[in-house]
Every structure is written in structure tokens, then in C-alpha cells.
């Protein structure tokens, strides 16, 4: 995997959106003053439908909602903590709530999941967005693990008239899925490895580390499963529950606060609803901000969610 070229999720998404904009004049791309090299072509080609609303996340959402009410399909581009938290009530009222009465196809491309912006300090860490967006009815919450999946979601997004939050990693990552892979966005997860004892449930970039462990430790084969959960809402809960029930030990992995409504809460609930008696260990970020300006690996280690910690957690059940 490490020999593949690395790619950011946005660099898969933006060219796909640009291509669709050529054929479809109803597609708009708005940014709150965030750029990307792959955005240059789009800006150039569609000066009328590329709009920089300024550093104004609240208005980014509101203008996007207004465009959507006129039948436009809208992409909003911004930095994760700001497009999730600075404008939360706008997302709630003018996307999630409004879409219960009128179609609203607005896609928040939220760049910088977890510690993506590792050296910018705690204001730039996005540790709450999974939990926040999960509170919003009618909103689809997408948390891809690689650029192939992120790019594939463009088509789905354009044809589903719903508000969506795309939790995108900010860093270039290897790909997990082959080009052209067909994802089931209704089901919402992929099984990357099957096992009969410990089930890892991961979302976003952490799937890479988990997969590497699974592939490199022969003893894990057939014993440790890995589920890449990319739709946190909606998804096929029954199907996921069935998978979870195949394990006696479950370990959740998320680059977000742990025990606070994110992936782990989702899994806990499914386990409890199924009256399943598996243990559930939740790896994630303890409730504390990190001021340290270290690398992402350093920050993860500080939180007890580095590969060694995952390894330790799994091994105790083998």
C-alpha cells in the first residue's frame, strides 16, 4: 500500500465536481476562503458558480441553503472545526430542519478531520464534528477512508437531494479501494477483513492503520475483523448490528472525542439494542484539548490511539 501514490480526498472530489459542473449548470461551489490546488481549474472555468463568501461560515451555510431552495446542488468548502461548529445552528435550521419540508441538496466538504491540522493547535482540531452532526436529523454523515471512496460519493451526492456533511481528512493518504470500486452508500460500511473474535470498527483515516495491522499480523487472520464504517447516518443499522454480533470483542476507532456521541456511541447503542454481550473498547481522544504542536503520530500516541495501542487492545482478547 505504501508504494501507491498518496492522494488527498479533496483532490479526488474537486475534479469530479468540476467535471459534473460542465454538464450541469445547477451545480455551485462555495468556499469560506479555503482553497486547494485542485480548485484552481474550477475557479477559472466557472467564475459564476464558484463563490468565495469570505471568512463567514454562517453565511456560507445560509447562502448555500438559499441556492438549494432554487434547485441548485451546492458544495460548500471549509475547514472542519469552523464549518461544523461556527455555523452549527445554521446547519441545523437551514439544512437539517429545512430539508424536512423542502429538498435541500447541500454538501459540506469539511476539510481537516481529527488532527489533520496537527500543528495549528486545538482551535483547528476537529474532534466534535462526528458527535455534532449525528444530532442532526435528515442530514447524511459521510466519513470516507480514502480518496477513491470520497470521489465516488460525488455521484451519489448529486442524485440525493439531502444535506450532507463530508468529514474529509486533510492529509494525502494511500488508497484502500481499487479505482472504480462500487460502494454501497445505503449500507454504509465495507468489511475489509473477516474474523470470529475481535471486530475493529473504524472510520476515516484510522482505517489505514488498522488495515495495516490486520494485514501484517498473521495471527490476526480469521480472528480479527475490520469494518470500515463510512456512513454514520443513515446506514443499514441491522446489517451492521449483524456484523457486530459476530464478534465477542469489539474495538472502535475514531479520531474524535471518545464517549461523547461519536462512532463509539453509535456502536454502543447497536450492541446494547441487540442485547449482545460483547465487550466494547473505544479508542479515541480523551476529553482534553492538546496544545502540543507535534506530528499527528505524536498526538495520536499522546491519546493512546497509535498503532501500538490498537495492537495492545486487540491482543488482550486473542
Amino acid at each position, binding site marked *: 500500500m505504501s508504494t501507491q501514490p498518496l492522494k488527498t480526498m479533496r483532490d479526488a472530489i474537486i475534479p469530479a465536481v468540476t467535471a459534473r459542473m460542465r454538464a450541469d449548470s445547477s451545480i455551485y461551489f462555495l468556499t469560506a476562503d479555503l482553497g486547494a490546488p485542485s480548485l484552481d481549474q474550477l475557479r477559472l472555468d466557472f467564475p*459564476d458558480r464558484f463563490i468565495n463568501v469570505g471568512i463567514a461560515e454562517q453565511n456560507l451555510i445560509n447562502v448555500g441553503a438559499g441556492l438549494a431552495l432554487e434547485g441548485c446542488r451546492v458544495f460548500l468548502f471549509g475547514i472542519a472545526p469552523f464549518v461544523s461548529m461556527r455555523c452549527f445552528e445554521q446547519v441545523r435550521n437551514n439544512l437539517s430542519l429545512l430539508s424536512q419540508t423542502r429538498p435541500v441538496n447541500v454538501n459540506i466538504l469539511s476539510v481537516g478531520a481529527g488532527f489533520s491540522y496537527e500543528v495549528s493547535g486545538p482551535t483547528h482540531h476537529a474532534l466534535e464534528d462526528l458527535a455534532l452532526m449525528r444530532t442532526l436529523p435528515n442530514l447524511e454523515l459521510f466519513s470516507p477512508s480514502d480518496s477513491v471512496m470520497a470521489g465516488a460519493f460525488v455521484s451519489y451526492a448529486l442524485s440525493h437531494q439531502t444535506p450532507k456533511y463530508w468529514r474529509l481528512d486533510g492529509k494525502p493518504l494511500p488508497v484502500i479501494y481499487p479505482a472504480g470500486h462500487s460502494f454501497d452508500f445505503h449500507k454504509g460500511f465495507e468489511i475489509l477483513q473477516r474474523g470470529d473474535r475481535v471486530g475493529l470498527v473504524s472510520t476515516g483515516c484510522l482505517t489505514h492503520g488498522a488495515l495495516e495491522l490486520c494485514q501484517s499480523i498473521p495471527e490476526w487472520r480469521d480472528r480479527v475483523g475490520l469494518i470500515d464504517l463510512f456512513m454514520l447516518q443513515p446506514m443499514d443499522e441491522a446489517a451492521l448490528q449483524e456484523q457486530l454480533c459476530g464478534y465477542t470483542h469489539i474495538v472502535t476507532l475514531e479520531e474524535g472525542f471518545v464517549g461523547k456521541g461519536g462512532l463509539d456511541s453509535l456502536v454502543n447503542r447497536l450492541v446494547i439494542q441487540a442485547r449482545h454481550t460483547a465487550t466494547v473498547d473505544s479508542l479515541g481522544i480523551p476529553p482534553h484539548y492538546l496544545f502540543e504542536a507535534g506530528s499527528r503520530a505524536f498526538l495520536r500516541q499522546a491519546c493512546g490511539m497509535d498503532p501500538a495501542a490498537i495492537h495492545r487492545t486487540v491482543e488482550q482478547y486473542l
Partner: protein
Amino acid sequence: MVCLLSTNMKDFLFNSRSRPGSVGNPQCEEIVTDCVLINEAGSPAGSRLEEKARWVRRETLRIHGIAPSTRIASSLSPVEIFTALYYGNLLRFDPAKPYAPERDRLIVSKGHGSVSLYPILADVGYFDKKELLRTGTAESFLGGIPDPVIPGFETVNGSLGHGLGVACGVALAMKRTGNPANVLVLMGDGELYEGSVWEALMLAPEHKLDNLLLILDYNKIAMLDYCAKIIHLEPLGDKFKAFGWFCEEVDGHDVKAVHASLHKLMKQRNGSPKVLMAHTVKGKGVSLLENDSLCHLRTLSAAEVQLAVGALA
């Protein structure tokens, strides 16, 4: 079951809307049913509009009598604005096609203070007038604060400071598709304290949204006090101008003047978004409410409603 309720509402909203004049409920008898939409060409006589405004005020008070949770003082100050728009041949609308592309979009950002729109929407045919009698009950889509489940309302209301930004998006889309219709926003003066409003005020001139008209219900009172005792808004015209808006003022209770200003501004397309500062009185027409700094929260008793209705005529 929650789901079902809302689905029912949607059914109602999209399919089973009744037409005006179809009402025979005796409790509704005093509601003017002879409403004829003023014909396209002519400008309405001022006296006709004044009469309408009086009627709207009366019906609004009656609805408040039915649903005391409605914000009566806030709803009385924009009566002449709504009247001029709906009865003055200004706003293009078609109750049979609430989302017709050629309609003018009216976004009621001060949702809490727009119950006076309920009788108008019923009168012009968006829904059955019987519905008014159920305002604020579980069976009705007419809540204390209007929502887009009500035919004729475009957006989610209730939280202040959202309407103008959404309207910017609507106006932008219409500019791009060459749709000549107007986008109007009704906003409260206290709402100007919300920073989100200023984000939208910055954006609109940049994109030359001259199809956008902001109508400010400038009644000088927010919830807890006079605006001037919270934070002075003046020199407000200077603020709008410095932000690149074309700004005009009007006596918001002189329905003829309001009509003339709206008529002029809706037509005006010279590259700038437009704001009409309508000087109004919160609780207009009800002496118990006018000039009371706390009128926002006041609920009139049945007897007070009776009295107020009598005093109007």
C-alpha cells in the same frame, strides 16, 4: 408517529390546499371574503389599502385571541407592509403554485412577528380560512411561529438572523438563471444585532444583488427593551450605505407611502441591493401595547382583544 404527522402536513401542504371563498364556518363570518386581487395593471386606491390594513389588524388580534402564545405586538407593526405587498399588486404570487418559479420570494426573517400574514395568506387563497381558528393547536400547521409547513412561507423561521443570508443565496441563483422575480426579506430591527446579518449585508452588494429588497420593520424595540437602551442602531442609514446598500426610509404605517416605496424599490435594478427602513410602532393600533418597552412579551386577554378590536374600527 412523529413521522406520520409531518407527512400529513406535507400532504396537506402539497395536495389538498383549499381555495378561497370555500369557507362557510360561522365563526369566520366576519372575515372579509370578498377579497378580489387587484388587477395587474392598476395601482390600488389608497383608501382600499387602508381598509385592508384595518381588516388585517383586526383578524390578527382575533387570531391572538385564539392562540395567546402568538407575538401580537411584533405582528402588528408590519401590517401595512404585508397589506401593500399582497393587496397592492406588488408581490407576484400564486396560491395554487406556491413554488412557481416566477413568484416573488418573500422571506420572513422575523418569523415570530408575522402572524398578521396568516389571515392574508388564507384570504388570498393559500389555505382554508377555517385553519385560522385552529392556530397554535396540535392539529394545525399554523404555529406560534410560522414554518415552511405553512403554504406561503418559504423558509424556517423562529431563530433570528437567518433570513437575509438565505435570501442572498436565492437571489444569487435567480441572477444566474435570469429569473427577474424579486426576493424580499422582512427583518426586525433587533435582529440587526446578530452578526450573521452583517455577513449577508456584506455579501449582497459584492454580487450586485439588486433583485434583493430588505424591508426593515424598524419599530425601535427588541424583546427586553428599546433598542436604544440595548445598543443604539443609529446612524443606521449610514451603516447600510457604508455597506453598499441603496437605502430609503418610509413611515411604515402610511400604507400609501409604503406602497409607493415598495413599488419603486422592487422595480429598481441598478446594481445595488436595497433596504427600506420602515419606521413603525410595535403594537401599532393597540394602545395597551404601543410605547410599552416590554410589549413584545405581552399577551392580551380575551377582553383586551375585544376592546382592541373595537378601538380599531
